[in-house]
């Protein structure tokens, strides 16, 4: 029976649910497992970094600063908004519709936490001699 067999997978899942107290948390397995996946994605990290440097920025500046494509930027900001890390405001500049973005306190905290985790993980990485 292969690991991808649905029957075996179901059995493993069931066993996991029955013994939650005995399971290690992701962070206990390895600190890298506890990284916030929403922040860990490079494009989203760049967006959060830009937003953390200003009160509010519009779409055009976010595009210029991150170097992302319009489609990718829209997708990633939507994900960050869903996570509650950024707030998006639609408004009109004269007759032209515009979009403004700002990082929320939750997003700011997530970015700070992520920076701390990355720094901690970085200290544990020991490159092997042949890689140096």
């Amino acid at each position, binding site marked *: 029976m292969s690991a991808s067999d649905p029957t075996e997978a179901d059995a493993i899942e069931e066993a996991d649910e029955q013994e939650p107290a005995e399971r290690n948390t992701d962070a206990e397995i390895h600190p890298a497992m506890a990284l916030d996946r929403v922040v860990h994605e490079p494009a989203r990290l760049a967006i959060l970094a830009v937003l953390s440097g200003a009160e509010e920025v519009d779409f055009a500046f976010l595009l*210029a*600063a991150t170097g992302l494509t319009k489609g990718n930027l829209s997708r990633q900001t939507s994900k960050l908004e869903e996570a509650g890390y950024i707030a998006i405001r639609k408004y009109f500049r004269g007759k032209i519709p515009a979009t403004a973005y700002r990082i929320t306190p939750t997003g700011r905290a997530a970015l700070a936490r992520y920076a701390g985790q990355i720094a901690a993980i970085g200290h544990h990485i020991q490159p092997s001699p042949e890689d140096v």
Partner: protein
Amino acid sequence: MQTMTNGSQASAPISELQQMTRDYASFARSRAGLGNVLGGIVGVLVFGMIWLFGHGVAVAITAIALTFAWILGRDILRRWLYQPFGVARERWSGKERNTHLAMTGIFTVALLAFAVVIVAGGWLAKPVGWVYLVFCLVTPVIAWRAFFTVPEMVLGFDLLFMCAIVASGHTPDLLGLLAAPAFALAMIPVGLQEHQQFQTLKRRLQMRGGATA
């Protein structure tokens, strides 16, 4: 959290992205660039004009026009020259916010006290009283909305005060005439330096593929 890549041209240390944004956004409020140069030139012109011609209707109108040309011109420069890649509003620290609040508060209290003296002292019987009353009521609003740094606050208040003095038919004393242009002159190199910094920042953003809005 040192470097990031996203498969496109966006590859820069995260701290660099944050700093670049802070620098760009600072030109929306705390750094005026050529706006400071304009302020310096207006300051020297206004005080030079008063020193040369004293008070008078023409001097008063020109002084007021030049002062407001600086205040409005600086905002136009901010919008059209210093936000070419889109809008970024500066994030103020608590200290900066409190400094602005304290400075505006001090001016407001002092000017409102002066306004009370004008009204209670019966100065409004003469046109001079009305000129000073308008100055007392308008200056705090302008200071709150338009002056965000100490140099802007000092030069702006000085210019508006000089406008009120010449509009009321008086000539400012020598100290005001000498101190203010010296201060205005000092703003010119600061403004030029800020403009140079912005040009460097602009090139960096262009290298990242940023298109001017």
